């Protein structure tokens, strides 16, 4: 405690906050998340709108940087096609750890409107890279994106950087016709069955 005493003496009268390095780093990392805008389609328009005058993203400390090596969070806004997937994955790998991903819009979450009947769309960006925050909407409002960033801040604050990050599976590029590899919940499993012809399609207005 000699060091603390010394600091205390040199700062007599000044307010003193004691914390551990870990918590301090985790708190400060969350405050300024530089974003890599991975805008590919319609949602990119809302991503642009979010950083402009009316919504002003910068005031949350989030600043779009086009260079993956400068950024902490990749915002995937838009449809990821099979042709685009290798580029997204490569950019993700260029980002330094610790890194995070926000899947913005239904397309990035699950393929969205392009889930059925198309041959070229990756059904959710979590097939190729790990996603931390899912943001639904087609497109989500800019405020929703800001909320997603705030959620991500909470997430970063609640997880210590000390252990590093572990992923529960190896992320590879999806094979055409393969099973959906990302997060599976019952709804998605059902949709995959319909797609593979194992279950009849319900609904529709016929």
């Amino acid at each position, binding site marked *: 405690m000699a060091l603390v005493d010394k600091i205390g003496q040199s700062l007599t009268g000044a307010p003193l906050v004691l914390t551990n390095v870990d918590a301090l780093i985790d708190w400060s990392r969350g405050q300024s998340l530089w974003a890599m805008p991975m805008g590919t389609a319609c949602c990119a*328009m809302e991503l642009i709108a979010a950083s*402009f005058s009316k919504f002003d993203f910068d005031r949350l400390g989030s600043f779009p940087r086009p260079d993956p090596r400068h950024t902490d969070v990749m915002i995937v806004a838009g449809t990821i096609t099979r042709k685009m997937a290798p580029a997204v994955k490569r950019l993700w790998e260029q980002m330094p750890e610790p890194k995070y991903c926000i899947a913005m819009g239904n397309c990035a979450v699950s393929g969205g409107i392009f889930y059925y009947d198309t041959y070229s*769309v990756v059904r959710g960006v979590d097939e190729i890279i790990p996603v931390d925050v899912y943001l639904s909407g087609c497109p989500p409002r800019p405020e929703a994106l800001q909320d997603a960033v705030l959620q991500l801040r909470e997430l970063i604050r609640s997880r210590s950087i000390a252990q590093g990050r572990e992923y529960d599976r190896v992320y590879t590029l999806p094979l055409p016709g393969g099973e959906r590899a990302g997060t599976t919940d019952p709804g998605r499993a059902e949709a995959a069955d319909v797609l593979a012809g194992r279950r009849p399609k319900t609904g529709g*207005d016929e």
Partner: protein
Amino acid sequence: MAIDIESRTSVYDEEGRAVEELVLNVGPSHPSTHGVCRIIAHLDGEVVTKAEPVIGYLHRGIEKMAENRTYLQIVPLTDRLDYVGSMYANWAYCRAVERLAGIGVPERAEYLRVITCELQRVASHMMSIGSTGADTGAFTMFVYAFDVRERVIELFEALTGSRLTYNYVRPGGVAADAPEGWLDDVRRVVGQMPARLTELDRLFFGNTIARGRLKGIGVLDVPTAIAWGASGPVARGSGVGWDLRKSDTYSLYPRFDFDVPVGERGDAYDRARVRLWESVESCRIIEQALDQIEPGHVKAPGLPRLLKPRPGDAYDHIESARGSLGIYLVSDGSPRPYRMKVRSPAFCNLALLPLLAPGHTMSDLVVILGSLDPVFGEVDR
């Protein structure tokens, strides 16, 4: 100014050092490529000798998907084609369906379509002009232009509930009548618009740097523009007075008094300026439409829930913010189209890039791409 490439492509420079051609890959993910466009640029020093766009990074198979959807379910898909101006593809598609199934449209619905589409033209052109500003280093311009765009988008949000993908124009009319007071809001916003647009003109187009960066860049001559099927502001910037609203007039456009701005030199400056003055003309059209619109129905009466047009085909086109946007539909009498084909102006205009880029520097390549205003949802479909 374009540089004569022939005089530059020597193998050795003045001091006898070997000069090699550099092949540079731009994109597919870069903020200044205006979408997921990849350009393979061959460079001699700083000068582009060849530029080849590689497309398909946003190919979502919308045309194929349409074969599996009923006629009404396709409307949201058309929103996602040209996502900077969703109303146009809605309208072009609905016109094709109406022609195919022989549906008439009530007058109030047509007025609402004209008003929304002209508002959309302003919003879309603001995006284009703004990004031209950002490409040339005038980021302030982007922020100002986006401010105008946001005002239009607020109006759309009040009308359709969505900021970007409206799904508003439907076969036989529009989704819903304008809410109370909406038309007054439009009048108020549009009334302020010309002053704002003139401000943009003074702010940007009168600026020495903007003139220096845009004038003489990517000059497109009239025969090439016509031969390559350029349309919209790209063709009009070169002086081709081709605007479907006048040349093959449709809907209620004969009732309005408006001009079609054309450029003279066909460079990036003229193309951007044509976009600006077109926005002013759009405001004129909207004001006339607001004066003429009368209460009435917004949907054709007696429309079946499930459209089954007779077997046959239909094509219809409208003037979108990017040029003539056409939709071709083939019906086999079932509730789903047999084939849908989109004639995309952005695709035709992007094809001009390899012609315009050689001889310009690398930084001008981005300006030329921006002046063609491609939207990759529509290029790749």
